[in-house]
């Protein structure tokens, strides 16, 4: 073995790899905007809270779909598991403290993710897609039938959530506490996911997405990695669901439904998957679009959204962020 030459680490490719995880100049922008929103639109914080929860949920999906390449249509299973954990514990007077409630929601959702992942992740492609859908449908039906505990079709409302730190009330009409609370949770989860995707573990997930057979051949325990990643993603989705239940003080079957699972998938595809910030862009784009489209054409506003998705799927596989990246590459070449 020759001694490493000093120039090796200075090669542009080596430098690019060594610096990939560094914070880029534009990365604080979404956070600054989110804080600015709090002061600029005090009357729309309910909308803002919903938006941030959606971003958090979409980030959890990005981890498995965008990085590990696990295609799922049942991600709301974990959102709902988290939401029902918070809802049932609060409604039955067992646990109302919000932060520990979220940790419990994450643990329960992670357990659902681990259990289903161990079975589901033996499969791939269409089979996997259908099985994720089935898992979610089973949970939804269980919540529907367990009326005594889950409130069945009506769900559980007027959840008694204790004030944050014993001081700040969760007021559904003036959701100032909720907004900052969600923002903090989103920031922590995002920081965790960002660290994860730039770690060697995250690199190996990307490897699995790009070529699973090759990953087997370099000695990676592929299924273990997938299950671990799926469990982490489920926990984060559970946090999103738990916050949703706390912020709205209710939980219903909609948290476990295909509607929610499909919407978050659309958001991620719209924004750009495997890019972390696609979740932000996609959630904003989706919410703004549905707001204006439903104003313009109240009866069939989803048609416009559908057409946009067709265009994205045909011409911009990497979503809005992908268009931005391509544009900056073209400009950079000039």
């Amino acid at each position, binding site marked *: 073995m020759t001694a490493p030459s000093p120039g090796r*680490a200075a090669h542009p*490719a080596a430098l690019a*790899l*060594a610096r990939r995880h560094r914070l880029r100049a534009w990365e604080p922008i979404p956070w600054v905007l989110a804080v600015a929103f709090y002061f600029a639109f005090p009357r729309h914080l309910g909308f803002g809270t919903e938006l941030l929860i959606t971003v958090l949920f979409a980030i959890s999906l990005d981890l498995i779909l965008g990085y590990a390449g696990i295609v799922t249509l049942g991600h709301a299973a974990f959102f709902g598991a988290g939401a029902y954990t918070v809802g049932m514990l609060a409604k039955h007077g067992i646990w109302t403290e919000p932060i520990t409630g979220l940790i419990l929601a994450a643990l329960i959702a992670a357990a659902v993710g681990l259990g289903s992942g161990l079975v589901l992740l033996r499969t791939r492609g269409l089979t996997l897609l259908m099985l994720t859908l089935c898992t979610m449908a089973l949970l939804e039906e269980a919540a529907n039938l367990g009326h005594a505990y889950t409130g069945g079709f009506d769900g559980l409302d007027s959840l008694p959530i204790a004030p944050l730190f014993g001081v700040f009330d969760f007021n559904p009409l003036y959701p100032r506490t909720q907004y900052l609370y969600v923002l903090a949770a989103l920031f922590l989860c995002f920081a965790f996911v960002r660290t994860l995707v730039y770690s060697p573990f995250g690199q*190996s997930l990307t490897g699995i997405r790009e*070529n699973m057979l090759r990953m087997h*051949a370099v000695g990676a325990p592929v299924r273990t990695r997938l299950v671990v990643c799926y469990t982490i993603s489920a926990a984060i989705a559970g946090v999103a669901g738990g916050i949703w239940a706390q912020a709205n003080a209710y939980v219903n079957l909609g948290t476990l439904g295909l509607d929610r699972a499909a919407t978050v998938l659309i958001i991620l595809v719209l924004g750009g998957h495997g890019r972390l910030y696609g979740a932000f862009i996609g959630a904003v784009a989706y919410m703004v679009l549905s707001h204006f489209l439903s104003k313009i054409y109240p009866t069939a506003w989803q048609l416009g959204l559908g057409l946009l998705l067709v265009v994205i799927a045909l011409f911009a596989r990497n979503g809005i962020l992908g268009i931005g990246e391509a544009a900056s590459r073209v400009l950079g070449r000039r």
Partner: protein
Amino acid sequence: MNTPLLETRGLCRNFGALAAARHIDFRLEAGARHALIGPNGAGKTTFVNLLTGVIPPTSGEVRLKGRDITGVVQAERVKLGIARTFQINRLFRRLSVLDNVAIAVAERVGAAPSMFRPAGRRRDVVEESMHLLETLKLTNDAGHRIAELPYGRQRLVELAIALGLKPEVLLLDEPAAGVPSAESHIILDAIEGLPRHIGVLIIDHDMDLVFRFAQQITVMVNGAVFASGSPREIGANPDVRAVYLGGGPRTGPPHPPDVRRVPAEP
């Protein structure tokens, strides 16, 4: 007799009615430079898949340094020191050349399960990957994505990944296929520059490469070992010439013979 590095005993594999591997007894010694040749469909790649654990055998066993590894899964066999390249490139096409190699190196050194430290901070992994790329004259391509490279260069990345696993047994499935002759010497040099203790099994149709490289040649036909011996013995073997070499040992295999006319056992 000393224990061979890698050994198979009575290895069989059936795909339905097709016997793709029939009672293969095979030995690869430490430090061997062994070639496996045979007409298309002879079962060479199936044999490699059995050695690496991609598919389980119908019967028989695989032993590494005397230890029975027949039930050991593919990823574990890699950790035990068996690495391979693929006949058709299996790379991370949208990632850079450096990333491709770094992923393999990270697995080998046990960095890959780490979740909280950025991959770029593992300087040992980056340094070693760059060193490998240097060895294979790929330094200038380090930042390019695989999809941007010509096929021949991609073959070199295949080899770099396998070498990044620091194997004791290296199985090369047609390493030079698709590589322009102007570049194939890089692959040959890399193979010849491998540490001596590694056992190398090379599968190829390129007779120049096989006869230059191998000290031992095994010929497979119809899923069974047809002949085995030194390059001189194989080159002089009239049966082998009839089924495979097409008359002369160094002229290459212009016409894949019709294997149905060949007896299963000599």
